[in-house]
């Protein structure tokens, strides 16, 4: 495993075969040489399906609310608890996957001989543990509302789809540390934005204790983001000079 990228035998571009490209562009008797489509046909198909589409799914009905859970749940009276439950479900799924992704990054870091100043296995382990704590804290929040933390909410489902490509990069043995850190940076940026919104949402819903816990989580995430951004930058700029 190498940290950065090199020059080599990349064959994907057209510069290596100018004659063939000219032949591809010339003498295309059946291809339309008219003006390119305005995309109206594609838009029409998309529109018809968007119009007919059903949601990816629903939030499960809350189970029986018992004991301490009642206090938090009561505060939601008159509001739409499903909005908060969906957001909590999405964050929970993201943080749970985050633990696994940090584990994968840790392995890649350890398997890469070249080390970055300031990046350490201890730090990555610490970030992974914080992601795990956030997962647990979010599960507790959902339970306090009488919601099922094991259910996959629509937000969790879509968040998972969003992350698919990033997860593939982090887990690909061929993706070097720089490429891996870039994927992690994208994840942390999205994570930060989502925690900021979750704090506001919890406040809107009268969940002050939750909002307080989320502010602590955002502090952790800010630290993750700062470090990941720094490591990635070091990695790229370090290679250039």
């Amino acid at each position, binding site marked *: 495993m190498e940290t950065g990228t090199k020059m080599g035998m990349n064959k994907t571009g*057209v510069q290596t075969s100018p004659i063939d490209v000219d032949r591809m562009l010339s003498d295309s008797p059946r291809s339309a040489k008219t003006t390119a489509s305005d995309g109206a046909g594609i838009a029409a198909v*998309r529109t018809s399906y968007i119009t007919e589409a059903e949601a990816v799914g629903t939030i499960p009905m809350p189970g029986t609310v018992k004991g301490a859970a009642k206090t938090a749940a009561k505060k939601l009276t008159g509001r739409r608890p499903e909005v908060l439950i969906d957001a909590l479900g999405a964050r929970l799924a993201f943080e749970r996957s985050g633990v696994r992704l940090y584990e994968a990054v840790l392995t890649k870091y350890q398997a890469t001989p070249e080390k970055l100043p300031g990046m350490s296995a201890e730090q990555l382990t610490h970030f992974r543990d914080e992601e795990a704590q956030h997962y647990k804290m979010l599960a507790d929040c959902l339970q306090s509302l009488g919601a099922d933390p094991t259910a996959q909410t629509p937000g969790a489902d879509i968040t998972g789809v969003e992350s698919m490509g990033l997860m593939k990069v982090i887990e690909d043995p061929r993706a070097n540390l720089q490429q891996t850190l870039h994927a992690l940076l994208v994840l942390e940026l999205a994570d930060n934005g989502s925690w900021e919104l979750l704090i506001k949402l919890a406040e809107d819903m009268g969940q002050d204790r939750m909002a307080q816990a989320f502010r602590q989580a955002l502090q952790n995430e800010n630290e993750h983001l700062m470090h990941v951004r720094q490591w990635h930058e070091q990695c790229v700029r370090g290679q250039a000079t």
Partner: protein
Amino acid sequence: MALSLLDSRGTPLEQQRFTWKDLVQKPISKLDDDAFTRVRVILMNGIESEAVRFSHLCARMNRDLQVPLARVRRIDHHQETMVNWLLGPDHSPIETTVAYEQVAIEVTAALAQQEPDPYVAQALRFALLEDFDHLYRYSALMDRIEGMDPNNILQTYTDIMAGRPTAVEHRMPEDDVRKPYERGKAHPLTKLNAMTLVAGEYQTRDYYMHFGPTFADPVARQVYAEIASIEEQHVTHYESLIDPNETWLEKWLLHEANEAWNYYGCAQQETNPRIKAIWERMLDYELGQFQFAADIFKNVERRDPAEVIPAQLPDPFPYKSNRDFVRQALRNEVDLRAKGTEFVPLAEDSQASQQYRNHMNSEGSPTETVAAGYQWVPGGELWRRVANV
């Protein structure tokens, strides 16, 4: 140099073994490996997939062959795994699709040029022009839905332009069934060509059926649904070229010979030394499997395997760009249509097929919609837009 099935007994069956690490090797590079390395990987996955499929069907119909078939089939399955896992995870489903169509075009064109039976050669060129159009439609899809350049996969070996429009490829089932070759008279190449293309088209059909539903965009889902339907037609088209009077054991023997023939062509022409070593190893395995099947054939049918396939196989087909051949076929035959077992001029097109396709297309044609006015340029269609700004 041609391959002789009897020059080497190959690797004995009991020595054809794998570990999980063996099966999951380093993948090829999407960026740096030659496109024809990927063509070979995809084709050989199809060949192995067909070996497994045939073996299961044969086992269902032949109690006495079940154990020997199961022994070879386990190896085939692992060979397929080793080969298919050479595709790297950075190949998205649409990129792999473009690569599949490149396989269909370049392999069919190569086989059509060496096919000695004029009717079979015509059948190959007929389907070639349809797969050629699929590449154009999928390229438009890739460019317009994902904003990517299909030539990154094709590496300028294969033209991106319209063929026989996919919208008119939809036919009634009776217009997809061809005349079979005669097993006692057919040239070995005819048998190998037909089997190779059935394998390739079947895996293409399966790939589109597996990955079509994984796309979110309804346009992509529709395009995959439409082209998968043609690939299903192509399986019917190619498998009907094969003599249905061949015995089960004859077919088994032919499958083994075809696998060896194809691996030999791969080993001869592979440019990546690591992958070449895999082809050589697989060729030795296939020679061992051919011997195993030939022994059973001799014991059961009391016939010489040479009655089915000569030990000296034809030269392998070349892995190279067939641009000129494809363009010539396009100029001369794009307007041909299929009616019953025959290929007819446009004016004689089957009425039943016309009615069928008119209904299928009556709520819009996905492949026409996605490629309306499409012309590939280096970098993709958007280059024309931004360069004009």
